[in-house]
């Protein structure tokens, strides 16, 4: 076999083994030492990262992609299910990035979760999650992808509910599972349709056999799966609620890796979607709606983690829009660059939260630029990368997406929504930076602000480096499969930048107004809409169940009893007779009035008859 092939296959399988090994050692009855987390798990991930760089460099040099089919798992007549790994350009680029980000997060978590008695278990859960994510990303058939899909869902549940003594955390974990389950319905529907129609779950065969078929049903199922997993509008409330978990969980799962699983699924199966205009339009409109709605909600949140969570949701909407534009590679590029700066934003938030003695409300922060300079600098770098500042990481992906959007035949509504969401991104990023690092401190004087621990500094530095150069490096080496449109009027070319700068200027103006009270009783309708998340959670989680339950109660207790006893049974008899009876006894009271009136009536009747 060719040495390149051997090297690539070996390295990638070694990565999996390196990550599985610490998990398997926990099955032994000997209790692990307290520093097992930092010595074993973090080292495993670090080594796996360096090992995974070898296939990456070979791919960049020679373009080697591999598919490794290990084991024939089962077959049902002519339907084969194998254990098969696909290391194409998507997986080979994503796996080192995921490992790099995870390495930084694990190192940070050794500081963040230092006082937690179950730290080893926490790291084990994170590692199992990472393995499931890599299985999902490298799967060559739908069965293996489904295994990874469910794995990340379950680990998300366990990690969000890490502090299970807190009722809110349990509710959030349950929400995550339920919303993901609804998406899973779509995935299983697609898998069933594909098994029935194409008789295969291997990605190669599916793409080849589906050339002339009408794929609307499975594609809508896949879009539903992505809606559930990647928090698109309609199934989005679990993502901000998932911030109940510890910050390393938010950084790893709910910003870089798990939530992009849905988008990754659509990217993997994008050849199925190329010719189906319905599916593409659904993706486009859903993504545009998501990105604007969640950006609006992010504008008035006061919890720093919730702002970053809504920012993640907004970027996921942008990725969905890109898929709707039939540009899966740009979506993948955005996934890669987004992982860096979003994880860094979460780690900065975690550092600030711990520094201010677990304070998460931005109205009670301030002045961190002087008190925690490295953290607030990294926060600023991350925010700038997020808004698409030219030549930082986010610029290469975000600007390319908006250029592609401006120059394609799509509906103007989606375009306007996305541009508006881009300007909102600048607004809420400035809001975070303003409230956290600028101005005077708004907290009490003795919080334990200390960022001098290398476990905090090194991950932030590594991720900051990634946020600055990752976009540049990836676009240098990654050939686009679709030719981008390179000529456009300057207004379209600068649209993203102009919209972002406008948002930034408006946010500056608004920030000047925060210290002056404009009106004594302002009309707060838009603020309330945004702050209450568009009233979506209240309606869906509280009002709809309440209506269903009260309907059930009314039917079960009142309606049945009333029908059988009062309307059709004994009481119906009385209720039919009594009105007639009371009407009749009205005349029979023995009043003189009655007699005299009757006398008069009879007499006048007689007069009429006699006179006519």
């Amino acid at each position, binding site marked *: 076999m060719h040495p390149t092939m051997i090297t690539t296959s070996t390295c990638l399988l070694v990565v999996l083994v390196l990550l599985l090994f610490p998990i398997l050692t926990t099955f032994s009855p000997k209790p692990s030492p307290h520093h097992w987390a930092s010595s074993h798990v973090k080292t495993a991930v670090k080594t796996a990262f360096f090992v995974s760089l070898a296939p990456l460099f070979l791919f960049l040099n020679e373009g080697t992609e591999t598919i490794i089919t290990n084991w024939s798992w089962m077959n049902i007549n002519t339907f084969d299910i194998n254990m098969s790994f696909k290391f194409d350009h998507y997986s080979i680029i994503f796996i080192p990035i995921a490992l790099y980000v995870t390495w930084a997060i694990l190192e940070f978590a050794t500081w963040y979760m230092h006082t937690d008695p179950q730290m080893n278990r926490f790291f084990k859960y994170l590692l199992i999650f990472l393995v499931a994510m890599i299985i999902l990303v490298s799967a060559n058939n739908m069965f293996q992808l489904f295994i990874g899909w469910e794995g990340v869902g379950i680990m998300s549940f366990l990690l969000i509910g890490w502090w299970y003594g807190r009722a809110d955390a349990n509710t959030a974990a349950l929400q995550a599972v339920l919303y993901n389950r609804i998406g899973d319905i779509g995935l299983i529907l697609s898998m069933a349709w594909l098994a029935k129609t194409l008789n295969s779950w291997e990605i190669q065969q599916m793409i080849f056999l589906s050339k002339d078929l009408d794929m609307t049903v499975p594609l809508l199922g896949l879009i539903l799966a992505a809606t559930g997993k990647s928090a698109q509008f309609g199934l989005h409330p679990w993502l901000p609620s998932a911030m109940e978990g510890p910050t390393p969980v938010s950084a790893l799962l709910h910003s870089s890796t798990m939530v992009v699983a849905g988008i990754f699924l659509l990217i993997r199966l994008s050849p199925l979607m190329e010719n189906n205009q319905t599916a593409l339009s659904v993706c486009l409109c859903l993504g545009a709606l998501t990105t604007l709605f969640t950006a609006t909600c992010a504008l008035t949140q006061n919890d720093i983690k919730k702002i970053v969570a809504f920012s993640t949701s907004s970027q996921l909407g942008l990725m969905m829009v890109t898929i709707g534009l039939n540009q899966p590679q740009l979506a993948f590029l955005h996934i890669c660059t987004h992982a860096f700066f979003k994880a860094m934003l979460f780690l900065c938030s975690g550092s600030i939260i711990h520094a201010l003695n677990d304070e998460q409300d931005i109205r009670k922060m301030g002045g961190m630029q002087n008190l925690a300079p490295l953290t607030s600098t990294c926060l600023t770098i991350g925010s700038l990368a997020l808004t698409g500042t030219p030549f930082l990481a986010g610029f290469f992906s975000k600007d390319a997406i908006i250029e592609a959007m401006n120059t394609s035949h799509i509906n103007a509504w989606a375009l306007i929504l996305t541009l508006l969401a881009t300007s909102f991104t600048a607004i809420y990023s400035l809001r975070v930076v303003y409230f956290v690092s600028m101005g005077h401190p708004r907290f009490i004087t003795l919080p334990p602000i200390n960022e001098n621990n290398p476990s905090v500094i090194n991950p932030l530095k590594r991720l900051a480096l990634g946020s600055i150069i990752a976009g540049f490096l990836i676009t240098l080496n990654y050939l686009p499969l679709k030719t981008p449109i390179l000529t456009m009027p300057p207004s379209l070319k600068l649209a993203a930048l102009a919209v972002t700068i406008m948002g930034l200027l408006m946010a500056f103006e608004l920030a000047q107004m925060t210290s002056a009270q404009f009106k004594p009783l302002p009309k707060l309708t838009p603020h309330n809409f945004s702050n209450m998340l568009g009233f979506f959670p209240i309606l869906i989680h509280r009002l709809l169940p309440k209506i269903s339950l009260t309907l059930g109660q009314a039917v079960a207790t009142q309606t049945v009893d009333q029908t059988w006893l009062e309307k059709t049974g004994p009481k119906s008899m009385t209720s039919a007779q009594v009105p007639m009876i009371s009407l009749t006894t009205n005349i029979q*009271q*023995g*009043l*003189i*009035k009655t007699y*005299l*009136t009757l*006398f*008069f009536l009879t*007499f*006048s009747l007689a*007069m009429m008859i006699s*006179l006519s």
Partner: protein
Amino acid sequence: MTPTHFSVSSAFILGLMGLAFHRTHLLSALLCLEGMMLSLFIALSLWSLQLDAAGYSSSPMLMLAFSACEASAGLALLVATARTHGTDRLQSLNLLQC
């Protein structure tokens, strides 16, 4: 209908209505009864004159005699009511009615 006929009929009907609808005092019912009797007396008198029927000339006198008896019976009832109930109001006769 001739004016005579009309006026006599309307007098009778007005008296009847007064009898049926004045329900405050017993005395007002008796007075209306007297009014009805008066209109009947006039009707009878005019009737025998209009039709030149001499045989009916004495009917008004008969009518008057009987109405006097009836009026005295009514007055006796009034006095008895006033003696037992203290007033001639018709509400007091209905007091035990629920």
